[in-house]
């Protein structure tokens, strides 16, 4: 307990250095500005802004990341409320009620309750992260390679199969990611796999190229292909920005309940903010004193899911920082950010670079405060960004997306891969395959393989080692149940549809 306070105080001392404060501010600002663009979720925001941090030192860059991460989430909810295009499924609940509020001229309070709710939830969840992380690290140092492998199996299954609409399509996405993860030189034997004698492929597939291709290029192609369907309508923010006393009274309980849903579910290696946001939405719908307003713009329906969304975002940092386990596309991008400096999150990083880890956690608090101060007064600026005509907006997004690859590796092969992943992302959207499992598969696949091979090398090739460790046996059991459950209970995947 005291250790946590000491570590957090030390982290705060790192985070409040003027340069680091500046990085956090730039991160928050850029994150919101990019996240507010329609169709761009937090994962893509982080992926697009990764090149900006290339030349920074790891500490400053991770702090900027924390800001980009939270900023992207704030920006996403602004878009969801004002034009009803949730950049990601976690903002869907927000869009449901928030956009109705905006249409009814209550866009200001909707934005306010989402901003303050995100602040409350983010702060509580970050405190949760600070206290849970050291405890989990103590536990994780005892993990052997077979336990890590089993843990990754759990993550693979829950991210792809358990909570999606179709386990088959989710697993297909995961295996596409695993296949891409095989490309390149095998680290243990130095042999090239799936490189087809193309030298650029020997280094493997870049996570950022994949993510930007799937998310940015894929999204642009998809929106272009169905431009004739929908006309997006930007709701102007009319009336007061501020919440009335009544609004406060109706908001604070949903904020806290949303946090209670979001943080634990985010912290489990189950991934995704969808479940907690929808749980929160249906809970608020059940508990509200104004059931007639639901579906027409109930403030509880914005406050709860927004809090759940932010709390679960902080929750996903628990497995990411303590175990190196990304359970969402955004967390996978954060991991890519660590990896560009050769840092591997996990128990070792807490021991070796406490300044980095705790500086990052402390920056999350700071980023949250900055967002609260920045977001409401600057809402007029964000709204103006939303008003960019669609042709220029997507043209700009594509230029920005390719720029990252051009800056990192200006080769014809790399750019062709970017375009290819764009087509893949387009097809996956069109045929309703989830995208996040591909990114998680690419980034975790090689790690899982090396842990498994290490475990088997230690056990002299005896596969029983996987079930002899109690941790690993339990986790593999969990993974198996999580894999079979959706097939057995066909209703589980459909419960989301029943919510609304």
């Amino acid at each position, binding site marked *: 307990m005291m250790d946590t306070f000491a570590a957090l105080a030390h982290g705060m001392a790192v985070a409040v250095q003027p340069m680091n404060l500046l990085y956090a501010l730039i991160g928050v600002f850029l994150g919101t500005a990019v996240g507010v663009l329609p169709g761009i979720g937090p994962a893509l925001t982080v992926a697009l802004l990764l090149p*900006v941090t290339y030349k920074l030192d790891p500490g400053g860059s991770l702090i900027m990341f924390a800001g980009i991460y939270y900023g992207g989430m704030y920006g996403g909810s602004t878009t969801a409320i004002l034009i009803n295009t949730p950049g990601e499924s976690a903002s869907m609940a927000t869009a449901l009620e928030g956009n109705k509020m905006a249409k009814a001229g209550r866009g200001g309070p909707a934005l306010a309750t989402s901003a303050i709710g995100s602040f409350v939830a983010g702060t509580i969840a970050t405190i949760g992260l600070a206290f849970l992380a050291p405890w989990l690290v103590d536990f994780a140092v005892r993990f052997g390679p077979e336990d890590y492998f089993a843990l990754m199996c759990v993550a693979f299954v829950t991210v792809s199969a358990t909570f999606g609409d179709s386990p088959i399509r989710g697993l297909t996405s995961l*295996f596409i990611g695993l296949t891409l993860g095989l490309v390149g030189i095998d680290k243990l034997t130095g042999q090239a796999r799936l490189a087809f004698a193309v030298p650029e492929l020997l280094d493997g597939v870049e996570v950022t190229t994949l993510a930007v291709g799937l998310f940015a290029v894929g999204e642009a*192609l998809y929106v*272009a292909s169905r*431009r004739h369907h929908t006309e997006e309508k930007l709701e102007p923010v009319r009336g007061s920005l501020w919440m009335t006393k009544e609004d406060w009274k109706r908001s604070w309980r949903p904020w806290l309940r949303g946090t209670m849903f979001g943080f634990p579910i985010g912290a489990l290696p189950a991934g995704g903010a969808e479940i907690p946001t929808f749980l929160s939405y249906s809970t608020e719908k059940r508990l509200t004193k104004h059931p007639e307003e639901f579906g027409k713009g109930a403030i509880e329906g914005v406050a709860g899911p927004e809090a759940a969304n932010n709390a679960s975002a902080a929750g996903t940092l628990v497995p990411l920082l303590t175990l190196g386990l990304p359970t969402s596309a955004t967390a996978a991008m954060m991991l890519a950010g660590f990896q560009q400096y050769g840092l591997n999150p996990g128990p070792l990083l807490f021991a070796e670079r406490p300044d980095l880890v705790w500086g990052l956690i402390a920056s999350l608090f700071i980023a949250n405060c900055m967002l609260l101060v920045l977001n409401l007064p600057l809402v007029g600026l964000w709204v103006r960004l939303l008003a960019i005509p669609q042709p220029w907006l997507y043209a700009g997004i*594509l230029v920005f997306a390719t720029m990252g690859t051009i800056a990192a590796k200006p080769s*014809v092969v790399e750019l062709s891969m970017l*375009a290819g992943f764009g087509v893949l992302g387009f097809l996956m959207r069109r045929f*309703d395959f989830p995208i996040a499992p591909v990114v998680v598969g690419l980034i975790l696949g090689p790690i899982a393989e090396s842990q498994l091979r290490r475990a088997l090398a230690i056990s002299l090739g005896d596969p029983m080692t996987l079930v002899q460790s109690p941790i690993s046996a339990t986790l593999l059991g969990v993974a198996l149940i999580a894999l079979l459950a959706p097939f057995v209970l066909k209703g589980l995947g459909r419960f989301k549809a029943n919510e609304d």
Partner: protein
Amino acid sequence: MTSGDPVQPPRRVDRAGIVIAALLAATAAVLVWDARGLQSTAMYGMGPEAMPVVVASGLALLAIGNFVDALRGSLPARESADPVPVVLILVGLALLIAIIGFGGGFILATSALFVTTSAAFGRRAILVDSVIAIVMSTLIYLAFDRLLTLSLPTGPLERLL
């Protein structure tokens, strides 16, 4: 998903689903073919060829699963898609790659992408967009080159700066 237009009737063999299943099966075959060229040097445990075979088996199973879904026609309904803008954007990406590949530089390459994408989204003012694109990519180039000291590909236009 909003849908207001004719979606295909359910419970019919979905041809796109069959193609997806075939592509997955083909990927599995490529994985196995590639893994056969690897030498297992590990004395104990798994060599480099084991994981590709595992992934290939998974892909093969999923190919069957997707095939069954396609036969049952239980894929989610799709809205009609307009291929023209998609092709236009892909042409833009191809132009970008070609210009970078032949040393045309960052500004020309990204401007080409900007103009084609903007056209794909329905704008017809190609001249205006070209001017906007060139100004914007020049500013980006200067920001990256001078401020962040990241080197972007140079071509005839960049050398003038």
